[in-house]
């Protein structure tokens, strides 16, 4: 008389909480998810193919548009991969400025994560507050490279220009107020009963599963694995910085929230150190105008706000274009664990799971 029927439902590609154009095919038994399959590719723009047909210098503008929330981190990885390919040594001042901008960018990216994640769970005011602070960081971006979002901040071999006058003052002013802003968000969320109910124990991913699925970034650190490329394989000026890698062991959405909030504090700390210990000197290495590599392949990984972003470059002798340009996008790999997180959970939990993974479809689909 009664029969169980599963309902198949499509989350996206146009859906308020899929952070762009992710599509998730869900099979529901009532409100419980029995099967979950993410479908991607709705923003596949052929970045890798385009870059293979452009010179090494031109490749940078496409890295901006991959993970558009953290363009500077993408630029940094790209620039360092190229420098590894050519064997370029970057001046120390340039390294410091890069580190500082990268950390500012981490703040901006985490703020977007906080904003959208909170909005997904229903706390709409945090969205607006986080965007308020993010605008200040974008002002810093704008002061440095003239652009808000797609920064094209670095060049192979260093920076195009030194910091503009007044930048340090702006940055210090921002840092001075940022701590109180963080406390403001935490007042709204950290001890909020509903927030805790919605996040504690939701979308769990154990450390073993996370490592097997290649998950990196805050999601892995929230599972108790202190793997941060800034510490494990130091690049830029991170070897000289004094910072901690925040970890949690609960491996759920709330743990990831705590990890990211702690990371924001650490980022502010690194920025402070960069500002205090900024060395003098040139910001650009001496390199020829046209770069032609020897036969070489490099894989350079850096710690983007979302996890490990790796650039795989193959250089062809005598050619100005990379023979192969491949990006190991953190979101692409991290998204693989969505079925593991969501199956058996309720439909509201998948919204939390997508939010906590902090995905950006631009880099997933490339």
């Amino acid at each position, binding site marked *: 008389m009664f029969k169980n029927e599963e309902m198949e439902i499509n989350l996206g590609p146009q859906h308020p909480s899929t952070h762009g154009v992710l599509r998730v095919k869900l099979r529901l038994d009532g409100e419980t998810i029995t099967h979950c399959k993410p479908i*991607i*590719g709705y923003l*596949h723009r*052929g970045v*890798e*193919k*385009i870059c*293979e*047909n452009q010179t090494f210098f031109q490749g940078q503008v496409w890295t901006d548009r991959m993970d558009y929330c953290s363009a500077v981190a993408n630029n940094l990885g790209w620039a360092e991969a190229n420098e*590894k*390919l*050519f*064997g*370029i*040594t970057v001046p120390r001042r340039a390294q410091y400025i890069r580190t500082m901008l990268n950390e500012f960018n981490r703040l901006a990216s985490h703020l977007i994560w906080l904003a959208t994640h909170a909005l997904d769970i229903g706390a709409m005011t945090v969205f607006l507050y986080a965007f308020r602070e993010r605008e200040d960081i974008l002002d810093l971006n704008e002061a440095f490279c003239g652009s808000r979002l797609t920064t094209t901040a670095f060049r192979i*071999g260093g920076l195009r220009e030194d910091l503009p006058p007044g930048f340090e003052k702006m940055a210090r002013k921002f840092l001075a107020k940022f701590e109180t802003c963080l406390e403001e968000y935490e007042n709204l969320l950290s001890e909020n009963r509903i927030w805790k109910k919605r996040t504690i124990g939701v979308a769990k991913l154990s450390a073993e599963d996370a*490592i*097997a*699925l*290649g*998950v*990196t970034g805050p999601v892995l650190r929230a599972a108790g*694995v202190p*793997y941060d490329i800034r510490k*494990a*394989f130091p690049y830029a000026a991170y070897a000289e910085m004094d910072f901690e890698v925040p970890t949690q062991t609960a491996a759920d959405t709330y743990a990831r929230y705590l990890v990211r909030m702690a990371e924001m504090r650490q980022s502010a700390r690194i920025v402070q150190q960069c500002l205090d210990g900024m060395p003098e000197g040139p910001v650009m*290495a*001496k*390199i*020829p105008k046209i770069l032609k*590599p*020897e*036969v*070489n*392949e*490099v*894989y350079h*990984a850096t710690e983007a706000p979302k996890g*490990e972003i*790796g650039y*795989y470059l*193959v*250089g*062809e*002798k*005598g*050619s100005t274009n990379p*023979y*192969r340009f*491949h990006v*190991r996008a953190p979101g*692409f*790999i991290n*998204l*693989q664990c969505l079925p593991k997180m969501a199956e058996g959970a309720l439909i509201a939990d998948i919204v939390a799971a997508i939010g906590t993974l902090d995905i950006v479809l631009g880099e997933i*689909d*490339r």
Partner: protein
Amino acid sequence: MTDPIVPQPEAAPEAPKGPYVYDYAASPQRQVVMPKTVPLPSRRTYLAEVKAAAEADEAKWQKMLADFETAKTKAEAEGKDAPKPPVRPVPRKDDNDMKTPWPEEAKDADLLLLQACLGAKVEEVFEQAGELTCQVSKDTILEVLLLCRDHADLRYEMLADQTATHYPAATGWDYSVVYHLTSISRRKRLRLRILVPEGFIPDSACAAYPSANWMEREIYDMLGITFANHPDMTRILCPDDWEGHALRKDYPVVGWGQRDIAFREDRGGMIERIALQKAGQLGINLKQPKAE
């Protein structure tokens, strides 16, 4: 009702029937320049190249010396001034901060251990730019991956990245598939590489590292390499009915025209007529598509 003073508009040019598409075959972007070289880094090739270059340099020097000798004897015979003795050319040193990373001999313990464990299955090991590369034979990749994961002295827990490259100019093989392994506990990275000919189906890495699932799907989508024992070997980025594999070197950047879709409702073929007129004015090559 029309005003007699206003001249009548000229009759529109006769529009040929049928839909029109931009002829991408004629576009310069469509023309694919196939690479002539095989930029596959390898210590063996590098040594051979260096040796050949040194030999060529030596030969050139010998020829210059010989030329000088003949010129000298000729000048002596003719009673002219002796020509200047040749100077051996020294390679120009650029004044910049670049230090080209060459492939170096494998000294790292991991590579030596792999070589010892696998023996003849390892085709090549070398280091370049501080990165360890181990090229293994294409049939044994799953075995090597399992070894890297489980061996007590290796412990590469994570497959960070897997990708492939198309080398149309190579002989005997067409694609290289690279695996970037990370050891979180030992803070080490390792690159495994296999060379795969067209049509060969390598083993999927999913059995050793579940994270290979989507990366192998992406390789299949972009380069057309299928993997054996993969749970879901379908396209991931492009739609299922996509034609061609985009990252092959014989695939044009602008594609084969799939992107030039027109979903927009055309009321009475108006847009087509306008497009045709404009194209005619601009001298763009428009042609009828081939009948399916």
